[in-house]
């Protein structure tokens, strides 16, 4: 019925734009998935003990969450539009398949948005545990929503669950689409990543404060509430990541070969740490003999498939980028594991967090490091799948828009997102400054000196005071 192949000249700017907008949104998505849980832990401790400091932290994080959720909601919408505006070829052909997990995600996005509103704005008038329980659906829908979106990405890596007849999709099995082969490892990997990003980012903020001499219970509590869950999850993440890599060696051997610099299929494949691949040579890399084979099959004799198994046109474009990103992700994972072990050791020996300045430096950069690792992981999986958008079924070029002018939208997006990102960070910093001053918070009074609108509704001493 339709022309199967359309060649687009816009694939490079379209990919750049998708990378920029997704790379930006994914940070907010991580915070959207996992930050509510951390806030709920703080509120739980605040209510249970009761602990005033944890309670203040929970309320303040809620306010920051309000900003982050808004930016996350709109940048997520951009991605929804881009699915059609940048990748009409993908949607035309596979929209009926990959749309279903997106629909499930929509359901959870609804729950998340509704209960986030109730939770964020219900602090003052919904008391105690009732308020806490309104936060639980946010945490749960964050996890299930993430599973749904990751199901789509995993499906692009391991497409299945549909029947094609005469070039048209005639039947879809939603269950197989959702729980495709790659979903099993991609889902936990990303959800754990979201929790690590959120936890270490929170911890990083307070570690930076402690480094500046703000050594009070408020800062230590804030640090611990973020650091402890993230550090506990780190070893699990390393295990899941290792399993995922092994699965990719089997499911997408060319992606794996790019991650590990496997030029030709062989046994006794060495592991390269760092190193830049160019013109058939690896420069400045550290070679560990047999180790890649050992990691893939637990024996040095394991055969690992190289990228020589497919023609050059079916290999990813920048192998060195994939490899270095992969190494960065793994390296940061182990660094964060080290930070957790250090804290554990301190707790075991002294019942206190380590006093060394280096530990707090590590804590201060842990959030940024976790974000870098997560972004690097996305580069590995997305660039590593090229030239395919749907693995072995559709190339990215076939998926891209045939409209010109993507370079224009790309330029505008970069400027707009830069402003958006800077504004978000500055506003969060301004909030923190105001909190430190114990300051006079302005409860959303746009444009005006008047403290309160004329009010016949009843006594609102609490509100008028703030």
């Amino acid at each position, binding site marked *: 019925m*339709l022309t199967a192949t359309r060649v687009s000249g816009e694939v490079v700017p379209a990919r750049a734009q998708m990378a920029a907008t997704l790379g930006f949104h994914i940070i907010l998505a991580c915070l959207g998935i996992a930050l509510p849980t951390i806030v709920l832990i703080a509120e739980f401790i605040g209510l249970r003990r*009761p602990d005033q400091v944890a*309670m203040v932290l929970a*309320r303040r994080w809620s306010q920051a969450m309000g*900003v982050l*959720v*808004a930016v996350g*909601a*709109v940048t997520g919408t*951009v991605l*929804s*539009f881009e699915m*059609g*505006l940048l990748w*009409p070829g993908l*949607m*035309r*052909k596979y*929209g*009926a398949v990959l*749309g*279903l997990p*997106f*629909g499930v995600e*929509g*359901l959870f*996005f*609804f*729950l998340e948005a*509704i209960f*986030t509103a109730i939770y964020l704005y*219900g602090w*003052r*008038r919904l*008391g*105690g545990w009732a308020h806490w329980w309104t936060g639980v659906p946010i945490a749960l829908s964050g996890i299930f929503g993430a599973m749904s979106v990751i199901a789509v990405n995993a499906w692009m890596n391991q497409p299945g669950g549909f029947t094609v007849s005469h070039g048209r*999709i005639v*039947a*879809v099995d*939603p269950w197989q689409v959702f729980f495709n082969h790659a979903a099993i490892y991609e889902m936990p990997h990303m959800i754990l990543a979201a929790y690590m990003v959120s936890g270490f980012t929170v911890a990083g903020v307070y570690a930076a404060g402690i480094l500046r001499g703000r050594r009070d219970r408020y800062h230590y509590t804030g640090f611990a509430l973020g650091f402890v869950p993230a550090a506990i999850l780190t070893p699990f993440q390393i295990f899941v990541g290792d399993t995922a890599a092994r699965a990719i060696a089997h499911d997408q051997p060319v992606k794996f070969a790019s991650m590990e610099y496997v030029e030709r299929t062989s046994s006794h494949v060495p592991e390269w740490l760092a190193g830049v691949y160019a013109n058939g040579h690896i420069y400045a890399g550290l070679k560990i003999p047999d180790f890649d084979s050992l990691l893939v099959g637990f024996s040095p004799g394991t055969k690992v498939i190289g990228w020589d198994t497919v023609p050059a046109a079916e290999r990813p474009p920048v192998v060195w980028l994939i490899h270095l990103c992969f190494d960065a992700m793994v390296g940061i994972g182990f660094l964060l594991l080290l930070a957790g072990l250090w804290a554990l050791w301190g707790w075991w020996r002294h019942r206190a967090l380590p006093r060394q300045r280096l530990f707090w430096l590590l804590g201060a950069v842990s959030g940024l490091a976790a974000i870098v690792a997560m972004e690097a992981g996305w580069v590995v999986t997305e660039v590593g799948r090229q030239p395919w958008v749907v693995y072995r079924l559709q190339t990215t070029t076939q998926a891209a828009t045939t*409209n010109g002018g993507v370079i224009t*939208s790309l330029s505008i997006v970069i400027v*707009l997102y830069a402003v*958006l990102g800077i*504004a978000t960070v500055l*506003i969060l910093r*301004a*909030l923190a400054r105001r909190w430190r001053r114990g300051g*006079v*918070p*302005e409860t*959303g009074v*746009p*444009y*005006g000196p008047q403290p309160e*609108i004329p009010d*016949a*509704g009843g*006594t609102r001493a*609490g509100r008028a005071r703030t």
Partner: protein
Amino acid sequence: MIAAATVGGILLATVTLYGILGGADFGGGLWDLLAGGDRRGHAPRQLIDESITPVWEANHVWLVFALVIFWTAFPVAFASVMTAAALPLWLAVGGIVLRGAGFAFRKEVSGLGLQRAFGAVFAFSSLLTPFFMGTVIGAVAAGQIPADASHASLAAWTNPTSLLIGFLFVGACGYLAAVYLIGEAARRGNRRLQVYFTRRAQAAGAATGALSLATLLELHAPAPALQHNLTGRALPLVILAGLTGLTVLALLAAGRPRGIRVLAALGVAAVVWGWGVAQYPALLPGTAVTLSNAGAPHSTLVALVVLFAAVVVLIGPSFGLLFALHGRQLLQGGEGLTAPAGGRAGAGSPARPRRSSGQPGRASRVVAIGLIAAGAVARARARGGRNR
């Protein structure tokens, strides 16, 4: 066929909900834009801000959901719309980003200058976004989207029909927002703002009515079939839209705002459904693309119907809760604490505001019940379709 028509109905229901809920949030931005200087505009801006704050993100999700249903159920038509109308869609996306960010940032910045700047971003993008969305719908209605577009077209959305529908969207958003805000002002017992938004609701209502009529007449040349059906099988809905509009204007003139929210929402819903009924079964008028021949495989459509049933069951009550809490003004705390408020201490004992006209969740409850009924019918029909 039945499955495709059911999902088409679901898509239209989603668009309707986005229109009457999300549209009002854009309308709030429009009145913010027109509220005047810092001092004069303070009270209406505050009311708008309080009314939109807890609900706009949840309302916004209807748009995302509509997009997903569109691309899943009718992928080829979706790709064609997104290609042919790329420019207004990009502009609408930009508006969505700026509206949300401007609105959220304005609350958190201190200093009049910054609040003004973010407020202006919020307000201007609230005006532009519905306009560009309207031009896209106009392009579809006027038969300007080809069956399988490969290039963007300027003419598709800059023809008189598309532009008229763009303005119609802006007018309808302003109308809905003003009507809802009358209720918000009434609930706070604020007579001045009640009068303030009554005037604006009247003006916007009149303008929206005029634009609707103009659009109906204008359709004669570009989309005669649509016009024929609007005055034919969709006529009851067109009359319903007109009657609700006139009733709202009469009630406003009489100073009796009871029930106007439901009527206004119903009027806008009638316009949307009038369009849907008049266009049925064409998906892209002017082409051979219909709901049934553009539809995804049957299994996908059934899955979407099931999914929508789940949305109705889970999201309906959740929205009911949100709107009910918001209506009782229980969702205003949270930010800004001078003293740490542990546990219940912060809750205080707010006096329950009087239940006034334009009850909080009533409009939403009516919609929710309607949706549940529609979902049940849809499911029954889908089942019937499978048995056949």
